[in-house]
């Protein structure tokens, strides 16, 4: 039976859970690339252009890792969720870059709500390529969505309840593909947890709320994922002690959106921009002084 490869990069952090339960239900075998390590990073830099953003570089590394380990690789494309909820252009071009750089078969679907291309249609499309029946696919989709929603809701609850904690609370504004990546965000989270800081993740808040609230900070913003991030600032207003902006170098939307947010908030913040050569020691020093400053503030 055909094996599907899922690269643990960009899209995985948004749709990974849905894909996993979708394939589980259909009993389609799949393989997920391991968490980002030095080897994958090197593969990524080999196949990517030197100006590509760190997230896309690692993504290409993951795809290259899976190249000879499966029959199909799942590479979706996300265009927009309506005209004022667009995505970064890397989300638009990832599929075509993969298709042209590697010599592999891909499974691809497109999310473009302007043209009525939804996730459901996309998943059914790839299911049909894998020779599954329509009725079965609809059931699998429903099952996957139900599981995803349950997990997501509990995550949101857990994350939101952290706001009531008495520890120092820091809002981490970052895209999930940076936050939970082993080479990019994991060390930062580990360090903060070790130092008794409560981290509130900007991506694990109700996006229906944050998306609308973002208008209070930026009227013209039309990037969906940046909107969700910035809205978190408004949602947690008055309940947090500091903000960490984490982005990958050179992230297109973040370069402008984070700049605007930094200029508008009245909170202590730190702006971390990571690339493939940055060492954690430098970041650690900055984090240390930032956390010290926040903790000192409370004792006074």
């Amino acid at each position: 039976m055909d094996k599907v490869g899922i690269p643990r990069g960009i899209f995985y952090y948004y749709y990974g859970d849905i894909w996993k339960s979708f394939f589980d239900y259909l009993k389609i075998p799949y393989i997920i690339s391991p968490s980002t390590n030095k080897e994958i990073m090197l593969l990524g830099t080999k196949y990517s252009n030197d100006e590509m953003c760190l997230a896309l570089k690692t993504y290409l590394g993951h795809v290259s890792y899976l190249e000879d380990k499966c029959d199909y690789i799942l590479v979706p494309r996300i265009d927009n969720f309506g005209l004022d909820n667009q995505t970064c252009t890397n989300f638009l071009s990832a599929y075509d870059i993969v298709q042209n750089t590697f010599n592999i078969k891909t499974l691809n679907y497109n999310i473009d709500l302007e043209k009525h291309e939804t996730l459901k249609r996309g998943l059914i499309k790839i299911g049909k390529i894998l020779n599954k029946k329509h009725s079965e696919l609809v059931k699998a989709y429903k099952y996957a969505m139900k599981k995803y929603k349950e997990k997501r809701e509990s995550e949101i609850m857990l994350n939101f309840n952290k706001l009531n904690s008495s520890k120092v609370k820091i809002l981490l504004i970052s895209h999930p593909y940076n936050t939970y990546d082993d080479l990019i965000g994991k060390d930062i989270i580990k360090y903060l947890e070790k130092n008794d800081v409560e981290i509130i993740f900007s991506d694990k808040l109700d996006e229906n709320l944050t998306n609308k609230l973002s208008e209070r900070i930026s009227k013209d913003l039309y990037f969906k994922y940046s909107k969700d991030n910035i809205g978190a600032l408004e949602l947690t207003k008055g309940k947090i002690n500091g903000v960490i902006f984490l982005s990958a170098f050179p992230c297109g939307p973040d370069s402008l959106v984070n700049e605007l947010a930094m200029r508008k908030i009245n909170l202590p913040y730190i702006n971390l921009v990571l690339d493939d050569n940055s060492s954690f020691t430098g970041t650690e020093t900055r984090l240390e002084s930032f956390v010290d400053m926040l903790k000192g503030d409370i004792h006074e």
Partner: protein
Amino acid sequence: MNKLSYPLMGDYHIPAKFLLSHVLKIDIITPPPISNKTIELGTKYSPEFVCTPFKYTLGTMLESIEKGANCLVQMGGGCRYGYYGEVQAQILSDLGYNVTLINLVTKGKTDIKRIVKEFKKIDPKFSRLKALYYTFITLKMVKYMDHVDEYIRSNIGFEIEKGAFESLKFKMLRDFQKVKSYRELHRKYHFYLKEFKNIKVHKPDDCLKIGIIGELYTIMEPFSNYFLEKELAQNHIEIKRFTNVHYLLFEKSFKIRKYLKDTKKYIKYKMGADASDNIARTKYLCEHKYDGIIHIKSSFCTPEIGAMPIINKIANNYGVPVLFFSFDANTSETGIKTRLEAFYDMLEMRRGK
């Protein structure tokens, strides 16, 4: 009294000034031409890794504020260009300037009602009918300018009397500024087109031909690409360039479908901004026996970065050399010249074989 200004891009400040000065009865300030000072100013106040057009436009804005402007116009879309306006307004207000910034494109669409409202705030006597008429003339002017430019580009490298094209173009633009009606503009255009065709050129049939593709601002603003076209013309090369304002406004939305069909073998989807256009153009240039392709962009231009591997692949398949340039605020001019010279020499040698 309100004073209005706008960022510069190539020669397009002439139609922009023409439109604004006829439609609004307020002072229009033309910012000083882009210089090293502009880009220095822009870089100083810009975020770290934003693309270069942001720095150029912010620089011109600051310079025109120095000259007394208090209303600014910004437009754009497709990639993060559409979001420039709001960030720039915030930066300017943080610097302590009290300016109104009118963004013509918000959230990827042009909301005419909102723009009319904004203009009425600046000039209460703003008339829609008049605006419509002059917009029509301006758009025609842009079309004529682009058409003349295309002729100039393919011939300027071979002029016998040096500077003939440039001086005539200067005259034409000066006359275009003074037109009062569409008929006059039309007549002037045909007159100058004839004049241009009368300029003697010595163009061999087998001259070198180079296509320039890339990101739109860098391609259209000669200062930001270090006068690449001039440099090429001095080496007697015929230049083909696709991007101009007329293309962006009118042709793009029709052509994109055809482009995607042409390049079916390589790409399946639209890639944002001009990326998929450039991929299709690469194929066109390769198929039409161009000697080389130059791809230019500002650093960190995300859509073009995505297109580059595919452009490379197509060019490899057809065996056409491509030169990639990525311009930043402090790119050295000598480095560019050396690379261009080497590229040009290589093309000549390929021809010799």
